[in-house]
């Protein structure tokens, strides 16, 4: 199967492990990811906040590039890019005036009929649990995991049309198919505040602190994420949280694609598992998985 792949800015530089593990896992599952030629930034939250038209136009520019690829499906690992491109396409379809304006701004015609999917949803539903299970050579037994979906992948439901905005389960199902033990908790979609990480660090430390305190209470081995913003934020702020709570706080934050790769028998280093601040390697070694 061949699909278009829109990595987004973070996966090029700060979230390489997400990109490389996604690429390898898709290859193992017989999926060919064809990167969108000449893609650009979707404008992320700054454009969405400061300039609605600019935000929609940047997404539309990417949709046009994808439409040029002659595949009908695009798979997007970054939840923000996923939600933004999906919502831009819907906005343009619903409003002819907006469509005309946007087409003028990007100076291109847009069809607006793409099947836009996030990477997790694509693997869970299009590829399916059965195919995932078949590839497992090293079951992740003995790993106690919590799934953390964050916001943009599922919220608001009326925009993402994906899983459940309050209590999603798709990542849980994938990890269970890999043989891991998935714990239950109430923080699957609690916001970690990543967008304010630089400008309002205190707010973000408080938000991540609530999440990590609960993760520790649940005695999880690791938190599994599908978003590079959540990954960086939760990985980076634990030192401060530990100090504030007067306790050791060092729970690895791992991409679900890294765990898929590991279960498929790929080496931990090749999946970038040695590239996180809180190193998951010793945990994985203790479980005989690395």
């Amino acid at each position, binding site marked *: 199967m061949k699909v278009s792949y829109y990595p987004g800015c973070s996966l090029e530089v700060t979230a390489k492990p997400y990109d490389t593990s996604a690429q390898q896992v898709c290859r193992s599952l017989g999926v060919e990811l064809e990167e969108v030629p000449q893609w650009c*930034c979707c404008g992320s939250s700054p454009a969405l906040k400061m300039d609605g038209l600019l935000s929609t136009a*940047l997404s539309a520019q990417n949709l046009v590039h994808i439409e040029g690829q002659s595949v009908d499906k695009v798979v997007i690992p970054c939840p923000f890019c996923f939600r933004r491109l999906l919502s831009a396409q819907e906005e343009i379809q619903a409003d002819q005036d907006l469509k005309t304006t946007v087409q*003028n701004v990007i100076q291109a015609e847009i069809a607006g009929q793409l099947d836009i999917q996030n990477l997790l949803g694509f693997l869970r539903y299009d590829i399916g649990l059965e195919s995932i299970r078949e590839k497992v050579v090293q079951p992740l037994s003995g790993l106690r995991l919590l799934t953390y979906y964050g*916001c943009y992948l599922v919220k608001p439901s009326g925009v993402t049309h994906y899983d459940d905005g309050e209590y999603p389960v798709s990542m849980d199902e994938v990890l269970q198919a890999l043989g891991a033990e998935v714990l239950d908790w109430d923080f699957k979609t609690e916001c970690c*505040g990543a967008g304010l990480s*630089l400008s*309002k660090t205190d707010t973000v430390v408080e938000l991540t602190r609530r999440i990590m305190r609960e993760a520790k209470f649940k005695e999880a081995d690791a938190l599994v994420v599908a978003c590079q913003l959540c990954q960086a934020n939760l990985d980076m702020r634990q030192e401060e949280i530990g100090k504030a709570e007067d306790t050791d706080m060092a729970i690895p934050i791992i991409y679900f694609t890294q765990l898929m790769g590991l279960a498929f028998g790929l080496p931990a280093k090749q999946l970038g598992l040695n590239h996180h601040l809180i190193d998951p390697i010793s945990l994985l070694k203790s479980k005989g998985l690395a």
Partner: protein
Amino acid sequence: MHRLKGHPEERRFLEEVIEKSGQNLLECLQCGKCTGSCPISSQTVGGPRQLIARILHNMQDAALEDPTWWYCVSCGTCANRCPVEINMYQVATALCEMAEEAAVAPCEPAIHRFEELFLKSVRKYGRVQELKTVMQFNMRSFQPFKDAKKGLQLMLKGAISPVHFIKGGAKDPRVADIFTRVEQLKQGEKAHES
């Protein structure tokens, strides 16, 4: 519902926000589910319910200087839980644009600074140069070594490359053109109005 009794002139601001955001704030029940769920509501940041109350009461200055929409991280939790599906991050965009038009100084300069630097980078390179933007933000906020230790650790692990702190990627003039055309369009509208 005294908000509906106002003279049309008194409802001008409210109507503009509704039109720009596409969110029918007149349906708001003031139930507070949004603020109760909003991650950024705090003692100093009033949250979406209060912001909507200000808009409904035509308190333009208070609404355009409300920190809530600057803080809003577009998490979508409010829209998910709101009984009438009001999406606050769309309202945030509308208010941000209206505040800029009305030349209201950003009441949250740090958030504004970051968002501007981010978009500057996108305008120049087509893709945001994250690490360079972080550096620029920290320099301009007079805290050059903020999180520097973590950056260094990640570099030592080989997770990020020092090059990306200084060097940008290739330039992408097509994206700069999009920025320019959006600007021109807005200036045209302004000229048309006045």
